[in-house]
Every structure is written in C-alpha cells, then in structure tokens.
C-alpha cells in the first residue's frame, strides 16, 4: 500500500500498490477525489480530478 496525503485536508490516503496513472482515489476524511497523475518509486503524485461531465458515460 502506498501512503499519501490529501491535497485538500492533508488526511491520509492509502493507495493499492498496483495503481496506475489515471485512476481516481478518494480521501476517506473529506471525500475529495483525486486523479493519480504519476507513479514512481517514491510514491504517487495526485491532482484534482475532473468533475463529471454531461457527456460522460458509456
């Protein structure tokens, strides 16, 4: 498990080891969603996830 901090509230977020860039993680404390923008040996980088768009879905 990779440990990182929420960009919003600095709460702890645990991310599975097999995470890939582009996946969405959610802070268990504040509920904010983030996109994993990068994975590397030192951990992961997060950025604010896009809001759901009107044209999203299958």
């Amino acid at each position: 498990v990779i440990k990182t901090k929420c960009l919003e509230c600095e709460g702890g977020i645990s991310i599975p080891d097999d995470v890939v860039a582009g996946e969405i993680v959610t802070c268990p404390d504040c509920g904010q969603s983030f996109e994993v923008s990068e994975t590397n040996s030192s951990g992961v980088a997060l950025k604010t996830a896009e809001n759901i768009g009107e044209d999203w879905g299958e």
Partner: protein
Amino acid sequence: LEKIGENRSAELGHIISLIYDRVRWEEKILLEELKARDIETKFIDAKLLILDHQQSAKGIRQDFGDAVLQRCISHFRGLHVAAFLEGKNLRVVNAYRTGENCGNKLLTTSLLIKAGVPTPRTKICFSQESALEAIEDLGYPVVLKPVVGSWGRLVIAIKNREMARSVIEMRGQMEGLLSQIYYLQEMVKRPPRDIRCIVAGDNVVTAVYRYAPPDDWRTNVAVGGKTGPCPITVELRENVLRAAEAVGGGVLGVDLMEGPEGLVVHEVNNTVEFRGATTASSTNIPKAIIDYVVDFAAK
C-alpha cells in the same frame, strides 16, 4: 506518452495504444490483458494530448502505434480523438462513425430502423409545443431521454398529462445545446429488467440481465441496477449482431428489452462498461475485447 512492455509481441509485431481520460476498472483490466500478452502498449491520457494536424502520419503512427483502443469516459473527447487519428489513417476501435452513431440516440434509432432491427416506437421534436403533442399521440407512460446522454441521466418516465406539462416545461428551461431536442419513446411493457449484450466484431461475448433497483424503473448499473446471467438465444444473437453492424460495428454494448412481441433494441453503447456484466458472466470479457483489437490491428 507512457510506454509499457519492452518487447513487441513476437506473434503479432503490432503496437496498440489505449487512450483514456479516466482509468475506470475496465481500462485497468484491459491494460492488464494487453500486458499479460506481452503486446507493446502505449497507455495515453487524452487530457494531455496535443494533436497537431501538421504532424505526419508516420509521426502519429510512432506515437500511437498500429491500432488504437479509444476508451474515453467523455463521449465528445473520445469522438474527436478518434476523428483526428482516423484522419491520419490510424485505425481506431471504435471508429469515429460508430461513436457518432451510438452517441446520438436519434442516429442510433434511425440506423436500427433502416437495418430492420426491432426498436421501440420513437418520436423526435424540437419545441415544447410539439413535444407535448407527440407525447399525447404516443400515449402514457412515455419515456423522455436526452438525445445525447448516458448512465440513465435525465431519462424520465412521463405517466400522465400533468406530469408531461411539468417535465417539458422544466426541459424548456434547461441550458445546453441539445436540451431543446425531445427524444420521446413508447414505454415498452417489459419485465423489470433489460438485457446488456457485449459484442466484439461478430463475437457475441456475453449477455446479462440488468434488474432495476427496488426504487427505480431504470436498469442502468450506474443507478443501482443489478446483473444476472442471461442465455444467448438465437433471437438475441441475431438482433445484437444486426444492431452492432447497423451502427458500424466494433466493441459495443447492445441493450435490449423483452417486449410483448419479442426483443427490441433500445440502445447501443460505444465505450461499453462491463464491470457489472463481469459479476454475472463467466466469460472473460476483457480477453474477448483484446482478441478483437489484436485481430483488428493485424488486418
């Protein structure tokens, strides 16, 4: 562009790119399937793309490989990516035209009717006045859907004239380029379930029932619908393959209802989600999809 897998597939020698804008469960499992086969895969975030019309077709091919699996969650983003890449002679699953045909319910319905695929009776209107008239003609209950939309959003069952007036008035107040297009459909007398069938080329991969949740009539997994196993009958297979062909083919989710006179196809989905189907089907869906993409790349 992230490159995964150092070796070209010895068997195929093709490079495949998977283009995403959000990695859902489906994109991750498709990526795993590609990696497991040792196919060189480029995993490309559409949000970071800068597509340059000046770039040569050869340069585009170096960036994107021989075939592209387009899996954007944003319909219009995916559609435009497909259009650009096809314009550079790349082969995209699904093709731009298929995406366009599936993304707009008016186009889907027109093509299904033209191909002789049974589909619910549908009317299209462009004003509140004509929409109310069409609803009266179709009879209650009637279903109002956004002409472009998914996950069951804003799909409304209109049960009587009073409700029709309120709903159409509300739609009239909504912003959005397509809000004043009224796609109205008879409500098919069906059991509280529909059928989701996943097709890849001419392979009917699997079919599952989608049961509406207790507090909704819609069956979309996104609104809480639950899946269960569904046999692939001759009638189902025939309708699904004809519907898929009608919209241009590829990897598709064909939705059907069991009407009083047989199966009717009401929707064909371009970027099919299959997590729900996986829980009810023993078929290896990602394998079947990647089989199709690999064959497509080799053609």
